[in-house]
């Protein structure tokens, strides 16, 4: 009962409350609840950040942005957009490969949505708390490009094809620095479990991986740049460059199929921001020492406090990642779009060597400190600030019994 939202615990709760059901029903119910939550988290950022994008871009360009829909700030603009898009006719050009053309928006959407499964929203609140969570998230995110390439190819239009080719080239090259930079927090934390990576960052903002050593500090900015590119956000939005390619890979799409691409894009923006917050910015820790220590001290067994601290952690993580999304929007409306050769140069000639150096530096840093200061970290050792594992022995035994 300690952690309500872990799938196995929720199914355990269902089987406690409704003991007369066969064994697979609670698991299915729990899976349904989690899937709904993840689906909501997939739709919600798109709803909020499309409005934010319009509003922020308006303000940056000295306009007002949406003002009327839904009251004072036009905050229902996304809903109006959604209703308009749903009413549009579902068109497909005659030259298109119908089957792939209809399917590719869903590939984009589903790949981003499934990546939310392994991301912890607060301490222990994840659909699947996998030990290789970061790796799975990156693997699932890398599938997004497939939908876009297929969309570009199957549209039967040269603009789409160009967009698809650019996107494929860009994504295939930017995966390399993304992987290398994402390894840095893994090396520091000694784990690919996102929950553990956040767990070592408790007890003050100087314990965040961002301030762990100079290489990690630079790595955060490299990670942010690379994720901008992997989400095809400006200045790397070559796949949909309006001024050159009409609409790029989505030129031939309309209505809901078009909007699925953008649902995927905005959810992807939020996802990589959450990843950045988890990997570098302390996740659900406030960064203020005495608050964090109080949060660690709260016993997880007490349902109310354990639950409320996690809700607080959820809010903090949401705030951090929303701020990062706002920075992404800000960059989009401030910087001009790069040319395709500049995009490739940025990646292959600058970001990959930089991330190689950062990786090497992260490997050498503890040795360097051990040689000079006789310790492997500048600040408090990782082991001392780590709160206890969230699964205690009784829960582990409970889980094992369930599995058998």
């Amino acid at each position: 009962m300690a952690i309500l939202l872990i799938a196995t615990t929720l199914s355990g709760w269902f089987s406690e409350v409704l003991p007369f059901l066969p064994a697979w029903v609670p698991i299915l119910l729990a899976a349904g609840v989690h899937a709904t939550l993840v689906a909501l988290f997939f739709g919600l950022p798109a709803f909020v950040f499309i409005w934010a994008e319009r509003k922020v871009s308006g303000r940056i360009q000295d306009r007002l942005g949406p003002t009327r829909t839904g009251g004072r700030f036009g905050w229902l603009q996304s809903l109006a957009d959604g209703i308009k898009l749903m009413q549009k006719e579902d068109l497909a050009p005659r030259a298109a490969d119908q089957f792939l053309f209809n399917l590719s928006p869903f590939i984009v959407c589903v790949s981003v949505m499934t990546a939310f499964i392994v991301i912890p929203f607060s301490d222990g609140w994840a659909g699947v708390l996998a030990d290789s969570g970061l790796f799975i998230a990156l693997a699932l995110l890398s599938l997004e490009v497939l939908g876009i390439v297929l969309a570009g190819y199957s549209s039967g239009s040269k603009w789409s094809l160009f967009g698809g080719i650019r996107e494929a080239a860009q994504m295939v090259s930017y995966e390399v620095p993304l992987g290398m930079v994402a390894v840095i927090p893994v090396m520091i934390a000694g784990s690919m479990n996102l929950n553990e990576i956040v767990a070592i960052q408790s007890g003050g903002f100087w314990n965040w991986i961002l301030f762990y050593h100079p290489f990690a500090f630079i790595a955060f900015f490299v990670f942010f740049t690379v994720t901008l590119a992997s989400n095809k956000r400006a200045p790397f939005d070559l796949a949909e460059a309006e001024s050159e390619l009409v609409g790029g890979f989505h030129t031939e799409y309309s209505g809901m199929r078009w909007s699925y691409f953008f649902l995927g894009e905005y959810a992807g923006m939020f996802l990589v921001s959450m990843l950045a917050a988890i990997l570098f910015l302390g996740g659900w820790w406030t960064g203020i020492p005495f608050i964090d220590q109080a949060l660690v001290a709260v016993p997880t067994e007490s349902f109310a406090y354990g639950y409320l601290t996690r809700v607080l952690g959820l809010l903090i993580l949401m705030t951090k990642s929303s701020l990062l999304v706002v920075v992404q929007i800000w960059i989009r409306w401030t910087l001009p779009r790069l040319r395709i050769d500049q995009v490739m140069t940025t990646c292959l000639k600058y970001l990959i060597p930089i991330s190689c150096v950062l990786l090497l530096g992260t490997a050498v840093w503890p040795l360097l400190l051990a040689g000079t200061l006789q310790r492997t970290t500048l600040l408090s050792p990782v082991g001392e600030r780590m709160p206890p594992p969230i699964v205690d022995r009784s829960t582990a035994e409970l889980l094992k019994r369930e599995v058998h």
Partner: protein
Amino acid sequence: METVLFALYALTACGGALGVVLSQNVVRMAFWLVVSLGATAGLFFLLHADFVAATQLLIYVGGTVVLLIFGVMLTSSSPFAAMKTTPAELLQGGFLGLALLGVMLTTVLAVHWNENNEMLRQVDSQVNDLTYNPPETGNTSRPIGTALLGARFDRDLRPESEGLSPSLSPGYLLVFEIISVHLLVVLVGAAYLARAKQVVRNRTDSRSPEQTAA
């Protein structure tokens, strides 16, 4: 529940494979390949092999197939390139497929599955009681990493009474690294060769106008 999911993923994998064989369009083949490989990754997840499943997704689905489609996009002469197979190719492919099926069937049938299950169950009860992920929820990345370094939890932690002394193997890390570096060298070499050809062609192109002028 697991049986149903297994059947679902296995059928999807087989259906995807059939799609690859039966479709004529190269990009559709690539798509069916994605379906098949993705379903295989699903099977890995079902077996609690998270790391292998994620690797499957990242390398095969996200990497190889995207490169395949990319290659098709860059090289195909007509919009939707179609492939026709001759009867000889069909015969050849069918023979190879049947031969592979035979090899795999003999391998699968040669394993003592029940004994292996018993052994694994004993090992799982000893290892990883107090981690973030209890056993059998797919925490395979650490065992794989330590096995690469040479420490095998499943072997070394077994009680001495079974007659097996704990032994440290050298691990596969060095082999793995050598293979990786070898692949990298191959890639760099391929890129160099492709570039060199282009330079030569440019030279001849630039020379020809001069020659005609002369």
